[in-house]
């Protein structure tokens, strides 16, 4: 397994990624982790140990809601869903993130040709 080309998540980005993942439908924790990994082309590695506290935190804030249900292969799992507040939060955070990354891109300058 080639882990050397995977990046750990930047501090504070996990919440945004969870919200974004849940925007396309309800999912359980493990599914969220998998989806993030898959959507990033396996580049982003979600630390499972910090995923659940993060989910709990978002739930506490009312951005996502949770309920126990059955997974595709019939295992019990806790499914998460984006709330209206979570959706608004996602929009705001996405805008913020884009502005930030654009700013960082400006500071860093144009990407040098792949060498």
């Amino acid at each position, binding site marked *: 397994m080639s882990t050397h080309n995977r990046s750990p998540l930047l501090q504070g980005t996990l919440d945004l990624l969870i919200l974004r993942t849940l925007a396309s439908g309800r999912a359980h924790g493990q599914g969220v982790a998998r989806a993030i990994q898959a959507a990033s082309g396996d580049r982003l590695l979600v630390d*499972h140990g910090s995923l*659940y506290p993060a989910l*709990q935190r978002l739930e506490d804030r*009312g951005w996502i809601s949770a309920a126990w249900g059955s997974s595709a*292969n019939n295992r019990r799992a806790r499914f998460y869903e984006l709330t209206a507040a979570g959706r608004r939060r996602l929009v705001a955070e996405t805008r913020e993130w884009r502005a930030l990354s654009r700013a960082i891109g400006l500071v860093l300058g144009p990407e040098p040709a792949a060498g």
Partner: protein
Amino acid sequence: MPGLLRFLKRRRRRDADFAAEIAAHLALETDRLVAEGLQPADAAWEARRRFGNVGLAQEDFHRRRAVGWLEALPRQLRHAARRLARAPVFTGAAALTLTLGIGAATAVFSLVDGVLLRPLPWSGPAQLVDLSHELSVQGVSRVPQSDATYLYYRRANHVFSGVGAYRTVDVNLGAETGRDAAGAERAEATRASASLFAVLGVAPLRGRVFRDDEDLPDAVPVVILSEGLWRDRYGADPGIVGRRVAIDGVPHEVVGVMPERFAFPEAASALWLPIGIDPARTAPAAFDYRAVARLLPGVTVAAAETDLRALLPRVPEAFPGRLTAPAIRATRMRPVVRPLRDVMVGGAGRALWIVLAAAAFLLLVACANVANLFLVRAEARQHEVAVRRALGAGRGWVVAEFLAEGLLVAVLGGALGVALAVSGLGALRLLGSAIAIPRLAGVGLDGPVLVVAAGVTVVTAVAMSVLPAFQAYGAEAGAVLARTDRRTTAGPGRHRVLRALVVVQVALALVLVTGAGLMARSFRSLRSVPPGFEPRDAYAFRVVLPTADFPTTASTVAFVTRALDAMRALPGVRSAGVVSKLPLEEEGRQDTAVFVADRPPAMGTMPVVHQVAYASPGYFAALGIPFLEGAAFEAPDVAVAPLEVVVTRAVARRYWGAAPATGRGLRLSPDGPVFTVVGVTGDIRGTGLDRAPDETVYLPLVIAPGPAAASGAAADARWAPRELAFVVRSTGGDVIGSIERAIRDLAPGVPVYGARSMSDVVARSTARTSFTLALLEIAALAALAIGAVGLYGVASYMVSLRTREMAVRTALGAQPSALLRLVMAQTMSLAALGVALGLGAALGLTRFLRALVFDVSPTDPATLVGAALLMTLVGAMASWVPARRAAAAHPASALRGDW
């Protein structure tokens, strides 16, 4: 609100649920890894490896879920207790201060609650009202009801669901058949209409209440006993109903027992007799009855009054008699409806509210003082708090820490305070009826009082610890840490709160001192009023001569003469006499219109009403009442009923001014015989030391039928009162025991009661003033002490902060006296500000004392100045000690010191 909802939801999710979710995750991950081709055992291990530390995640969840401070509270309290135990002086001072404050507030509140706030013990007490009349006649301003007014109001009103009448009488409870005759005793009885029981709405414990037909005077004699009398005298006999008991020598059938709580009209009411009113034979102008009514739902006191005012003019028509329409107009008589509670509490209410205000002030002073102690402590801990903050302690943590300390100190103070209140109330109950506060028996530390005490404690704790906590936390951590020493002198702004609290303490203490000073002055002037008799060495007791044992006037007079002779023969007795009413007591009081013989009243005016009392000549000597003119009557003799009276100076002045009064004539009814004035006594303040002198007409003990006719005596009989007070002057010792024995030897069946020294009677008449004074004095002294300690503490603290500065000044050549002045000036400016504010507050507040003070203005300048001087003096003393310490600072030691 959404925050709270989320909070509650979060609380609901359990640790186990979170663990189950992690287990589910591991299972799902294992499934996927198996699908990717791993062996199940390897897949499970890999899933676990990828998850990382399961325990850490669960702990994180647990910490987030818990209400941090709530779970940390026991620990916080434990730590706070340890910190407080390490500072015993601080803890002791703070707890003791609060003990005083909370104790005073609790004790006084329980008084106010028991006497003023708690509902009366009868059903629907808010609807109960007292009915009386106000009138504008010289000598009387309020009369209750006559049988006629009661009957008419009861019949014709539109505002009450019921009206009951009653009057209190004292009766002799005779010995039971087959029992020792010494069992005779005197009891407080109430003649009550059958309707009274329905109005008050209390069911009997046993038997029944009166029936309406028993209101008539010739009904079969029946009696209702109080639970207390039933238990004490009749051993709670279950067969009491139907039994016969002798009352004033007449057998009465017991028909019922009223429960303890009924206690109407007062706690001492032992039994109830039928009222004995005959609608066919009324005395409309004899206001011998009191009436209680229950308002119909929705009727106000004012509406009831309006209704009765329309009814009064029609009473003469319905019940012809001496209460005539012109008399009602001439006296401007008008019905008055007052809530029963106000009537029962009477004048004690205002005194209690003022004492409660004083207690609240004391509590405020105590709180301010303890808050100051906490502030100083917070200052000292500022460095430590800053360090903790730098290490990540949140604001909540710091506040919780101070709150825990505050709570512990307050609970300690609160518990001690409640204990103090209990002992204080115990002492108060020992004083008992002497302080003339009604309903005192019901006062105690019960639910509502303890709730208030606990509330006061918690509010106190929060008030005095949150401010310092924010003060400690609010300081910029970096700045505090950078200030690694206390080399700098504190800036003027830094202790603003500290100073403000000291000023408040001084101001509040001054208000209390002023109040206590006013009460002290007024008490002194009250006690310096000459009562008009010599209470020292005078003793009195009352007897009632039952008709059964003394059927004729001759036998009562013979008994009185024999009793007086026997008493005079006793060693240690100087003189003895007998009278129907003692000064400064209400028992036996009679008021009668007086007509001056040489001055017939103008048409349409009412004669002046005066007190009358029957007296033997020895009475004046025994009580030490001086004669200004003439002398007393001859010794009572049933053969002679002299038409003579003795009047007090106030009566003589009213009618004859400075001219001699002896030889003038008075009538007690417009067409009655003329009584000649044979003597004039000095002024007697028999209603109250703070009242105008009594206008009393003394009649001889045996009188001719004229004035007696109204009392029902046969026209040809001599008449003498049967309810009498014996008064004895001793040569110096207490002779009560021997004179009571002398009476008992003469007539074993006559109950002797109410024995007291006349000094006690005088003290009792000023008891409420002295009680208020004592409580205000205690509050003022405590406030003064706490204020002084507060001033001292703050001055000491300021000095300790400036020790280095002082040392530098000394090194630079400052004189110790200059330093002393410097520190004193700083503290005294605070004291002066407090005194100024306090004087302003006192000027505004002491007017509430107006009803309590006597012969002194509520804004008496001498008292205000005195209180201000006292406060300033105490402030000076409190700042002197720390100032001396500052001035004595040795330059070398201070500069060398490890600061």
